[in-house]
């Protein structure tokens, strides 16, 4: 039925407009308080203003800086720790309870501690983002290494493959696969951490705009900043999905 997708898409757009319209209507009619809920048109005006005066680019870049540097640092430390965990059974057994402890701890609450340790600049924000994702990367890296079948390792060894060949041709693809499957979840965590880190002691960035809006009772500022965060999250997620699908194209589909 070729008309079905068309109708579905039409319904989606209609639903979105209906939601935005009823929001606007409810505020105008006085059912929702404007000071709390703002209005779609006010949020739009706020966004256009940010676009014109450069706030949009500045705040987004500042938040993305925290996100990207923290993510890269978390990825690197996670890969190193994961490689140790995956390649040495004794080491894995020794540190297992510590890994479980760190993994169960809500790391987002570490920011106050990091701010005492690393100052009130951008450094504690990097540490927070890295701390949120590194353990997930480590666990997945270790799983990727253990997931390699022994027969495959023996096969490559028998054909004369050394350490380098094993690392690049056998272990690396498995690690990439495992880390990639966790990458989308991790990007969500890292973005949460980056925004949350700007709630405290920051003077810029999207998280700062959100708390600043709360402090000044400017609901449109909060909603506008949340809209930007949402767009960034969607773009990152879509990009990662494309990477994931490309990287796993060689695998037989499970469907």
């Amino acid at each position, binding site marked *: 039925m070729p008309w079905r997708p068309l109708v579905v898409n039409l*319904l989606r757009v209609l639903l979105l407009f209906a939601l935005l319209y009823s929001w606007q209507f409810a505020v105008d009619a006085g059912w929702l308080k404007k000071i709390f809920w703002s209005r779609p048109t006010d949020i739009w005006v706020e966004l256009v203003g940010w676009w014109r005066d450069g706030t949009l680019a500045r705040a987004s870049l500042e938040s993305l800086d925290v996100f990207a540097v923290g993510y890269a640092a978390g990825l690197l430390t996670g890969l190193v720790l994961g490689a140790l965990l995956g390649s040495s059974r004794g080491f894995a057994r020794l540190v297992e309870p*510590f890994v479980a402890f760190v993994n*169960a701890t809500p790391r987002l609450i570490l920011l106050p501690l990091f701010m005492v340790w690393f100052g009130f600049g951008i450094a504690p924000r990097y540490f927070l983002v890295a701390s949120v994702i590194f353990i997930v990367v480590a666990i997945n890296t270790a799983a990727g290494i253990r997931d390699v079948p022994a027969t495959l390792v023996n096969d490559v060894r028998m054909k004369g493959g050394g350490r380098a060949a094993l690392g690049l041709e056998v272990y690396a693809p498995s690690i990439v696969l495992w880390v990639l499957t966790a990458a989308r979840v991790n990007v969500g965590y890292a973005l949460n951490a980056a925004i949350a880190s700007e709630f405290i002691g920051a003077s810029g960035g999207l998280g700062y705009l959100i708390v600043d809006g709360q402090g000044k009772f400017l609901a449109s500022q909060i909603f506008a*900043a949340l809209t930007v965060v*949402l767009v960034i999250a969607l773009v990152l997620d879509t990009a990662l999905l494309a990477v994931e699908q490309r990287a796993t194209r060689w695998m037989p589909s499970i469907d």
Partner: protein
Amino acid sequence: MPRRRAGLRAIAVLAVQVLMVAGLVVIWALASRRLGVRLLVSTPGAVISWWWEWAQGRRVNGLEDLRVTLYEALLGYLLGIVLGVAGAVLMSASWWVRQVLAPLAAIANALPKIAMAPLFILVFGATLPGKVYFVTAGVVFIAFFSVYSGLRSIDRIYIDHVRALGAGRLWLIREVYAPATVGWLATSLRLMAAWSLASAVIAEYISSSSGMGYVIAFGQQLIKPEQVIAGILTIAAVAMAADRVIVQVERRFRGWRLA
């Protein structure tokens, strides 16, 4: 003989682990003899004595803080499960509803929930319900998507088979839908627990006068690292304990799963 060696090794591993923790504490204690370091990490003794005085109710609000945080986290957690499961069931009911709403659910899920904390505080104030709703918003999509995937992963053959045997709606739910989704939900319960605790603490941190988040924020304002560290360690211990409990519960119910 091999069994005995394995037992010996387990004891050795445990001994080394205990030594590692002891070593960390000793390094911490030695390093904090210098004033500059002590201002950053306090001392093990100060953290323990602060915690003891707090537990007896002589600091901040005492154990009441922990109770408030756990209450918010637990209520938000349960509300998140109920709403998530209900949403997934409703959405799976009809092809049209599913098709139209799926992108909206995905968009709502993509929004970093922590970013909404100030919005909840603006709308609900620094009240308890506001924090519960914030926790719910943080975990509801985890439950929703796990149950939704579980319901969609059911092989038509099972449904047709049970129907052919004369099953009605209730029977289908008990024999096919529930077992198929329980496993999916169970794997998300641990993740939801960690998130609900973190969400509650962060909401309290931003604006509150009780709870572990308040303990941490207050300690930071007073420049008392022992209070910040004791607060964080308490939450970490609670999170770890909650995680263990959920793993145990999950293990008990493992039999009731669709293989």
